[in-house]
């Protein structure tokens, strides 16, 4: 009997970055889960970043390297006592190298419900020119 319900979500532990270089501000840094897919016209990147507001996120693209960084400005201490703490909060950081040429003017970023949707349109490839040889 096949189950028509969608499968149950399993817990995915937040991946923490253990880098040798020290961060300037103390705190944990996590790697967000991303989906990257590519069509003919553009590359789309979807990243899970719950609890991040649009002004805390910085996206940097230079030299074919794409860097996503968040800065939790409002982390402040809660005036509450912890009874159960199953996940940690912290900043997010992830870096990618892009092989394709990206049209930087048309990059579009949307942060909805804690999911970042980054559209990177590819540079339109120059149309191949055929060169006619004149007989002379």
């Amino acid at each position: 009997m096949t189950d028509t319900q969608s499968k149950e979500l399993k817990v995915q532990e937040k991946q923490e970055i253990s880098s040798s270089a020290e961060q300037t501000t103390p705190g944990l840094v996590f790697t967000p889960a991303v989906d990257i897919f590519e069509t003919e016209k553009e590359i789309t990147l979807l990243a899970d970043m719950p609890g991040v507001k649009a002004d805390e996120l910085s996206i940097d693209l230079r030299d074919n390297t794409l860097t996503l960084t968040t800065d939790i400005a409002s982390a402040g201490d809660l005036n509450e006592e912890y009874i159960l703490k199953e996940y940690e909060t912290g900043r997010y950081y992830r870096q990618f190298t892009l092989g394709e040429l990206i049209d930087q003017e048309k990059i579009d970023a949307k942060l909805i419900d804690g999911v970042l949707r980054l559209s990177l349109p590819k540079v339109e490839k120059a149309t191949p020119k055929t060169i006619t040889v004149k007989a002379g």
Partner: protein
Amino acid sequence: MNYRQYVNIPTWKFRSPLDELYRIRKQMEELYQDSTVPTQRAGAGVFPLINLTEDKNSYYVRAELPGVKADELDIQVTANNLAISGERKIAAVAEGARYHRREREAGTFSRMIGLPGDINPDKVDAKLKNGLLTVVVSKAEVAKPKQIAVSS
């Protein structure tokens, strides 16, 4: 039989033979606790992971649910339990798209959280913002601490 000779060895006492195993296990636990990287524990191992905090007046339940919309989420309060369930959908991609990476998952989730004290089921407030769910559950009046003045 050289009784005295045997008693001097520190590990040989008149207790269960599993003492040695308990000692080794305790040392292994201490070994893991010393690491500076915080050990990640999944807690109940059920999605979503939650952080439960409290102050004098209410309990706060926080969960990270990126990509879940408010109407896809179902929250119920029964006695002292809070039930959170729903489905996380991932939008279908255009035809002919090629995946380079696929790390995010979609699926259903359901979790029941037992709160440690009596609560007031009429004053429960849930907010889903930026993929972070915060549920504020007010404690029942009898469960709030009351100051008692001492007369001398």
